[in-house]
């Protein structure tokens, strides 16, 4: 079956015949290995992508069922020439150890900040609850989001009260 999806803004049709996951298609057929393959049961979050704006584990998306969808992977959020603010912040706090979980945290974190630019520490923890870091580097990861969640100088003048 030919499946048409948009990945990071580009049309990326692919051919699939079985129940393969979107994760395996992204990595194997579309040359996008940024999305990581670990537990394959939705427990670890390393394969997190956005699917039509929803945060999902790409291992639990049947690729053929994504026909017509828009997918954003970590490759669509930033690259070496222009890092995403979440990537900048994680660099700054040293939030990367082995790096395997990092793409999932970047996608889930970017999704959170799009909807809630100044999350509280509890909101950060809840939003990242589906992402596991086996190096247990959670301290540095949550500190990255504390940096990002701080109100920016320009925000004070445009508060909700006005």
């Amino acid at each position, binding site marked *: 079956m030919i499946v048409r999806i948009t990945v990071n803004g580009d049309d990326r049709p692919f051919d699939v015949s079985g*129940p393969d*996951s979107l994760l395996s298609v992204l990595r194997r057929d579309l040359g996008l290995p940024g999305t990581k393959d670990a537990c394959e049961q939705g427990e670890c979050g390393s394969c997190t992508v956005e699917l039509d704006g929803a*945060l999902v*584990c790409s291992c639990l998306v049947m690729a053929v069922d994504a026909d017509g969808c828009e997918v954003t992977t970590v490759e669509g959020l930033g690259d070496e020439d222009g890092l995403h603010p979440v990537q900048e912040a994680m660099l700054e706090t040293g939030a990367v150890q082995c790096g395997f979980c990092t793409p999932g945290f970047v996608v*889930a974190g970017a999704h959170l900040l799009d909807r809630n630019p100044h999350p509280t520490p509890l909101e950060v923890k809840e939003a990242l609850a*589906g992402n*596991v870091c086996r190096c247990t580097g959670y301290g540095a990861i949550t500190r990255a989001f504390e940096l990002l969640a701080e109100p920016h100088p320009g925000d004070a003048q445009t508060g909700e009260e006005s």
Partner: protein
Amino acid sequence: MEFVAARDLDDALDVKADEPDAALLAGGTDLMVDVNLAHHRPASVVSIRRVRELAGVDEHRIGAGVTWEQLEGSPHRALAQAARTVGSPQIRSVGTIGGNIGTASPAGDGLPWIAAADASIVVASRKRGERVVPWNEFFVGVKETSLEPDEVIIAVQVPGDVPESQEFAKVGVRNAMVISTVSCVVMRGDDGYRIALGSVAPTPIRATQAEALLNSARDITEPLLDELADVVSREVRPITDHRSTEAYRRHASGVLARRLVERTRP
């Protein structure tokens, strides 16, 4: 593999009428685990996530395709509380209450609420049309339901007399991303208290002896609450497995029921 992306309920019922073995795919949070880890290769799959008839939700009818993320905003307090404890944001964005019902895991977090609400499961097929099945006739065993192979779960039908005073809690090994060791819903209405539990029997259950004890008492006193916890602990039928022991589940059932009765006490 044959694949149909159903646009409406007719599409889905047509596929199931022709091929009762076709796997239903909504959020994929159960089916794809089978595909990935058990190397399940369904011959036929029908995706129902675009079926508009399954999407609606109001106070008396919850479409089978309604996600946990949507249910986090449910006016039914204990259902919203349960929704918030399901999986992670990635699971709640796609996982549906219909999937929870169809999978019928003893640990399904939505099921104690359905039992406490005395809700029914609405199913449909090409051959028999719509059937409304009371929850206690729908769930018949561990991951076993009375759903016929050609049927599709379309909604939860919620009675009009569901008490407003209701609480959910669950016990698990951590806060996030956890499968329930014990889950409990207590409701307090004009007809008295209702107590439902999950993960402590093959199906969700009502603690009817404990309900009778509470509803025959004049006052909810401390000694009565102690007795209530004992009765609930004896009434449940848990097993020992990799997640917990029978003894712990009995104890935790009593603790949770007691705690939620206290929270719903006037």
